[in-house]
């Protein structure tokens, strides 16, 4: 396999990982916003969030492996999980390593959710809001041609989607906090249209 091919694989899997991560974050936010319909019940969206996150991890694993195997740049196995120690672009790569570590922590704690302290799980899951921006900045900073053309447009589109969803979520939680008093819940206002569930 020529060096050029591996580099393309690394770049492609990186971009796909970013897209999948964006999708994961969006699905997670939709769940928190209690979005659902008869055709897309909430448990299905929740299941999708879980499966897409696993797919993201898989693609990320391939991305990291290919980058390491590709001997064009001096990156070794340790650099994929330990930030800022690589010989090649330590800063931008380090951000990616941190994002990878965070995603690993998020997935592992979620798989073990029933067995760990619920409050600990919730606190750790907030790190998703740190993981995604790190991944985006890593992509824009390290990609040799990421800051131009359609990769840039893709990055911007992801950013817009996540920021919009995050803002929606903030506004919704402020509103329910005002409505429900000192506890931020407000289920009654949002009816689920699940087939056969006449309320």
């Amino acid at each position, binding site marked *: 396999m020529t060096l050029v091919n591996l580099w393309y694989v690394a770049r492609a899997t990186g971009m796909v990982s970013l897209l999948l991560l964006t999708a994961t974050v969006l699905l997670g936010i939709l769940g928190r916003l*209690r979005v659902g319909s008869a055709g897309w019940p909430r*448990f299905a969206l*929740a299941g999708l969030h879980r499966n897409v996150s696993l797919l993201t991890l898989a693609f990320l694993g391939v991305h990291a492996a290919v980058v390491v195997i590709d001997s064009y740049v001096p990156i070794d196995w340790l650099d994929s999980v330990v930030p800022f120690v690589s010989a090649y672009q330590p800063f931008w790569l380090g951000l990616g390593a941190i994002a990878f570590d965070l995603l690993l922590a998020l997935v592992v704690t979620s798989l073990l959710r029933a067995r760990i302290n*619920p409050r600990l799980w919730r606190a750790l899951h907030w790190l998703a809001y740190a993981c995604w921006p790190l991944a985006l900045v890593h992509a824009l900073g390290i990609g040799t041609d990421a800051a131009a053309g359609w990769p840039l447009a893709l990055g911007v589109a992801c950013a817009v989607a996540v920021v919009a969803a995050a803002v929606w979520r903030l506004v919704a939680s402020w509103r329910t906090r005002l409505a429900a008093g000192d506890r931020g819940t407000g289920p*009654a206002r949002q009816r689920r249209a699940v087939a056969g569930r006449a309320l």
Partner: protein
Amino acid sequence: MSAVADQASGHRLRVNPISCVAHGLCAELLPEMVELDEWGYPIVDGAAVPVRLVAQARRAVAACPTLALHLDGKRGRHA
């Protein structure tokens, strides 16, 4: 459905009312046993789970975003 599958499995459904914030996934996954009241909260009255619904009940328990739904086992809690 066979008579065996309709028998009580010895498991019971229980909701922790403080953890529950009415996401409602339990009612989506287990409509045979979970009904939602007018405010979206599940009505689960410690009902015995028939054998044929145990697997689905476990799915519902795993799906709850706040882990408020519990399946209590034959030997006490935490099946």
